[in-house]
């Protein structure tokens, strides 16, 4: 379909959920109400980063007035769980492996009594040395977080290497060593990033009931109800049909609400007590037990030719995986497929290792692995250009990936709009590579970014009502406005006004399987399925209209509640009439759609940050920020713009202030007082340009866009800082103290030389 034909796709209609959210009616995880009394659950979590659990005594807690149930590992099947590698007991039974590891749970009539009961549970620990750094964890004499690693069952993605390395992946093309040997110049540098927490505004919250028919209902704030259901069923040891997961409104996820949290504890406590149990994490618990972005140690080596080409590169990446192989292990597998960035390098090898440490379980956070590798790649682009005396923009253009460029996994990259995206950012910002300075200690910095968006198996059902309106039934969580975009997609496909389309996210008992809302693929996958379902509906209507219109289905079209013969607008039949006929003959008109996995396709972005550096304190102020984003087709432009700006804000946090820090395995910043996410006063307006060029796949040519905008931010800011004060900081976050130290070191170096 041509872009100009679109009537509803491309409009910024208000989000379908907006009124409930603006009036306080939307029910988030903690807001779910059930009739009758409910219990408050609390989790006893390990205070130690690494210890053997020798004994747990819950007797005193059970006797406390108001306590209705206590749960430990003894209440669950003795199985190891995990989506990549089965390496976790839901309740610690042998060891605890990070501060916050789940040991026991209590349900009581009030939060305060539950908290008091936790203090009455006696646990005897034998302390073990803790690993807080993956480099230390790779030493041959390092203590083992999982001594049985090599006996664990591998489910997907993870490829254990042994020691503390729970996953290893390496892909290559050409011969990087030969490339370095022939290169005109070779550069090498290490880049380090810290764990970054998603810091969604809503902490994890769930409510579970054990029902009289021996089933469980779990209400939870999750990005994916089916993944959650499967995890809960696995840990409880029951078939999946006996667990119903209802996704609540979700107060932000960004990848942090995929892994199961306290749902199984709530379900177990409900089974034992006979009452619904709600468990809400405190903010400190959420920081302690969340699934942050992994910290990376990246050694990047690049060979360049005299004519500005990157001829060879190796990237050795070590991921701080935390205590269990969660999303970081999956990322470890995926990294070599996209670490090349927006470029094409003939001799390339990317090796990634996910390493256990005694820290929170690293998992997915918006563009997992993207900002970390991009920080190395785009910092190097500028560092190399500066050293070689090249125009960094020309250097980039010379090495951009072409259409159909195969990634390291051999998948051709299609709809490569990188050049257009770069040009759009240059245009809105007025960037001039020869003039990046903006005055004393002020400058701008550029970085390109990309994220390869795949697709996940997803199905949907489209039900036609008697009056011609339509309901789309999905099991997808409306995380980023997807139900609004789906409304537009279905309305467009059926040529209905948006008021006649309702999209509802239902529970796991009611909806077909849907992928989690993550990885920027939600609309791409579900939208594709919805378009298919609409095609099926149309096909059913057209076949019924053959008799009325005396035409073949392939000559028909839908418009204004009628089926028409193309080119003969007078030959029509009302959709309502066809629906009634279908109902009488063979029941309701229902379309179904589904997709399998898509291959990964790139979405690009280009960012330009203008900064001011206080060279005496090291404090960086963002003066201006410009971002362009390759979107394919913007189904709902305002939603797209919101995604870009929000992604930039999270990237700014990663660049300048965010990082989970640990001292001897103890988390140091488990609240917003010390984990600094950007406030309204930390950000300038983010000037955003959507670059539209329909993609070869995705509904109406829409690309996935949620992840990319956080990718190039740290590099763009680091490059701006370099241009402002001549200091290249190679670790994140670039907080004032770190930058001040670097500026001082440079001055002292100059003074002594």
């Amino acid at each position: 379909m041509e872009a100009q034909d679109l009537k509803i796709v491309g409009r910024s209609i208000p989000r379908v959920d907006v009124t409930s959210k603006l009036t306080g009616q939307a029910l988030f995880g903690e807001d779910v109400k059930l009739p009758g009394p409910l219990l408050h659950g609390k989790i006893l979590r390990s205070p130690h980063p690494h210890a053997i659990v020798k004994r747990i005594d819950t007797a005193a807690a059970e006797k406390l007035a108001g306590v209705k149930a206590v749960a430990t590992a003894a209440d669950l099947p003795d199985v190891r769980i995990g989506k990549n590698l089965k390496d976790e007991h839901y309740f610690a039974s042998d060891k605890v492996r990070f501060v916050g590891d789940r040991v026991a749970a209590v349900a009581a009539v009030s939060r305060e009594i539950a908290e008091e009961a936790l203090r009455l549970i006696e646990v005897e620990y034998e302390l073990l040395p803790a690993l807080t750094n993956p480099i230390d964890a790779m030493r041959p004499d390092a203590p083992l977080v999982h001594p049985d690693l090599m006996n664990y069952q591998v489910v997907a993605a993870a490829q254990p290497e042994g020691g503390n390395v729970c996953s290893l992946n390496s892909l290559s093309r050409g011969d990087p060593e030969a490339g370095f040997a022939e290169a005109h110049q070779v550069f090498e540098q290490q880049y380090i990033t810290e764990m970054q927490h998603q810091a969604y505004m809503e902490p994890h919250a769930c409510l579970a009931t054990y029902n009289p028919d021996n089933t469980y209902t779990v209400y939870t704030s999750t990005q994916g109800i089916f993944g959650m259901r499967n995890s809960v069923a696995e840990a409880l040891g029951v078939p999946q049909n006996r667990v119903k997961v209802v996704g609540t409104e979700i107060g932000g996820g960004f990848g942090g609400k995929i892994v199961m949290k306290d749902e199984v504890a709530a379900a177990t406590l409900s089974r034992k007590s006979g009452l619904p149990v709600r468990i809400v994490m405190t903010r400190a618990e959420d920081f302690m037990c969340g699934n942050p972005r992994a910290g990376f140690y990246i050694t990047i080596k690049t060979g360049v030719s005299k004519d500005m080409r990157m001829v060879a590169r190796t990237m050795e990446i070590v991921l701080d995986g935390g205590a269990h192989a969660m999303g970081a292990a999956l990322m470890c597998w995926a990294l070599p497929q996209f670490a090349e960035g927006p470029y094409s390098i003939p001799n390339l090898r990317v090796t990634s290792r996910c390493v256990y440490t005694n820290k929170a379980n690293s998992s997915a956070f918006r563009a997992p692995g993207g900002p970390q590798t991009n920080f190395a790649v785009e910092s190097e682009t500028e560092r190399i250009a500066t050293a070689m005396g090249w125009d960094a923009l020309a250097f980039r253009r010379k090495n951009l990936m072409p259409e159909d460029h195969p990634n390291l996994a051999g998948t051709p990259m299609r709809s490569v709009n990188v050049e257009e995206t770069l040009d759009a950012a240059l245009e809105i910002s007025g960037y001039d590579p020869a003039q990046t300075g903006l005055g004393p200690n002020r400058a701008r910095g550029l970085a390109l970014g990309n994220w390869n968006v795949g697709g996940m198996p997803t199905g949907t059902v489209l039900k036609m009502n008697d009056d011609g309106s339509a309901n789309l039934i999905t099991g997808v969580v409306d995380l980023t406005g997807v139900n609004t975009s789906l409304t537009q997609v279905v309305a467009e496909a059926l040529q209905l006004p948006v008021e006649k389309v309702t999209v509802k996210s239902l529970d796991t008992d009611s909806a077909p399987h849907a992928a989690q809302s993550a990885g920027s693929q939600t609309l791409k996958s579900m939208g594709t399925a919805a378009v298919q379902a609409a095609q099926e509906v149309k096909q059913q209507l057209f076949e019924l209209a053959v008799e009325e219109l005396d035409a073949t289905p392939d000559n028909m079209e839908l418009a204004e509640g009628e089926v028409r013969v193309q080119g003969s607008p007078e030959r029509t039949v009302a959709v309502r009439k066809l629906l009634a006929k279908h109902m009488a003959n063979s029941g309701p008109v229902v379309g179904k759609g589904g997709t399998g996995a898509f291959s990964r396709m790139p979405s690009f972005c280009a960012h330009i940050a203008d900064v001011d550096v206080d060279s005496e304190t090291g404090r960086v102020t963002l003066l201006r920020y410009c971002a362009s984003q390759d979107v394919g087709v913007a189904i709902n432009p305002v939603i797209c713009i919101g995604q870009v700006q929000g992604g930039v804000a999270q990237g700014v946090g990663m660049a300048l202030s965010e990082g989970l820090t640990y001292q001897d395995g103890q988390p140091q910043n488990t609240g917003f007082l010390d984990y600094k996410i950007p406030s309204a006063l930390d950000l300038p307006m983010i000037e955003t340009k959507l670059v539209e060029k329909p993609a070869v796949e995705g509904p109406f040519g829409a690309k996935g866009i949620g992840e990319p905008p956080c990718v190039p931010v740290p590099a763009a800011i680091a490059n701006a800082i370099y241009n402002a004060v001549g200091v290249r900081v190679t670790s994140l976050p670039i907080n004032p103290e770190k930058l001040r130290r670097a500026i001082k070191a440079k001055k002292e170096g100059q003074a002594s030389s």
Partner: protein
Amino acid sequence: MQNFTYHAPASLAEALALKNEDDAGTRFLAGGTDLFLAMEFAGEPVKTVVDLKKIPELTGIEELPGGGYRLGALTLMGQIEAHQGLRAQYPALVDAATVVGGPPIRNRATLGGNICNASPAADASTPLLALGAELVAVSAEGERSLPLGDFWSGPRQNALKPGELLKEVRLPALPEGGACAFERLTRSAMDIAVVNAAAAVSLDDAGNFASAQAALGAVGPVVLTVDGLGDALRGQPCSPEILEQVRKLAEAAAQPIDDKRASAEYRRDMAGVLAMRAVERAQLLARQGKGDEK
């Protein structure tokens, strides 16, 4: 949080009597922004909470007859922020009050609570110390006043005696030709100070320093005075060399420690930078003030 008994007396006498019944187990409640967290997270054993917000003697911002201001202990940060008289005379205090948390916190947090909480990083305390504020404490025995500099003995430790309550803060008038300024360094906009500094200076007719005092926050167990500043600056112009001396004195006064927010080394370094900036800006304001008179 442990449960407790709550009282909201309408008179000072009643509040003091309640405190005297069980001094150790009783806490006064002002804005509550620190106390609530202390009771929730630090598990402070509080049996009785005496809410002071209904006591009129503890409120109000008034100019004193001989110059200077009286600020009731329950004065909100937001009230200081919005007070034109204070803004004209004590911009250092107003600027500091304006960065204590976000607006909802400033509508609740009180000056007296902030002082009594005795955090070395309390933003409003630094300008008060530089400005030479006096405190008035009250007990069943009567009132006594003491210099702010004598009030803190360590983090979360103040000089109130059993049964005593902080009633008000008295700010002396700035000397003729005086001005003050506040500087703060944080990791991001909404943050606790990594270091803060305030300076109060006055200039003589030649434009040289006549007096100078400065204070530093978050670089020691309590908010600290920069000793020797007045003597070093008196009669001197505001030259780069003199500012360098301010930096050295501030660095010498600082007693920082390493913590999760910053290293001791960085804090000492920044104490020097911020003290210098505060003195320089106060001096500029004083100069502008003099200029206005002409």
